[in-house]
């Protein structure tokens, strides 16, 4: 238990170290999520558009 507390305390620098890592992780993960979401959305739209074009021809 003491080890965990010492780890999270980061030698007194917890208020600086954890936001630094947290923000970096949030931004990097966030980009993956939004980029993949946008890709899926566009792929779906393209499939719809090509399907409706094919049905019209």
């Amino acid at each position, binding site marked *: 238990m003491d080890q965990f507390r010492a780890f999270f305390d980061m030698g007194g620098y917890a208020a600086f170290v954890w936001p630094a890592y947290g923000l970096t992780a949030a931004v*990097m993960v966030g980009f993956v999520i939004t980029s993949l979401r946008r890709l899926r959305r566009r*792929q779906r739209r393209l499939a719809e558009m090509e399907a409706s074009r094919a049905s019209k021809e």
Partner: protein
Amino acid sequence: MHRFANPGRFQRIATRILPWTAVASGLLIAWGLYLALFVSPPDYQQGESVRIMYVHVPSAWMALFVYVMIALASAASLIWRHPLADVAARAASPLGAAFALLTLVTGSLWGEPMWGTWWVWDARLTSMLVLFFLYLGHIALMNAFEDQQRGYRAAAILALVGVINIPIIKYSVEWWSTLHQPASVIRIGGPTIESSLLWPLAIMALGFKLYFVSLLLIRMRSELIAARLRAIDMALVRRRGG
């Protein structure tokens, strides 16, 4: 417009590479985080706050690396009109901006306990801030024009004009007296940083690079589909005569 009509070689190569870069990036970053947080020693002066280095420095390296990549793509776009160059620049820019911002914020989080200040207008920090603004300008220009091609061209010119900032950032700690410390890794004579700190740093840096490559491929694929959608839209509008 119709140069994006077929997925082509890029998609095939991208589909083959992406799983490898994505998995490698995940593993390297996981390993790097483990070394950074659990294995690497605290600094005798900076204590545990030195661990911020393992996100701050890779972010900074990425901010610079991505900008150079965009500058090269911009040159390819302006000189050879390579169709993928604009797509690559567009896909990369927000990532570069994010890394620049992370560099500044993690740097401030490191600076406050170590230097006693969140910010100082020294050459390194100021030129990094300028880099962030260049990214914002690049993104804004790409989106500012009705005619997509004009936006790409304006952005490409901005990227090339701004490239002088890169050596300024790199050498700022040598050319001016800065609060920011001098180079301890990429320098003539080799790194002066201890290997127990260098290893986690190198692993994180490589992980970040592969992360960027993976995300770039995803975003480029996304952008190519968007271009195709626009082309279809325009064709429909023309057919309807409106």
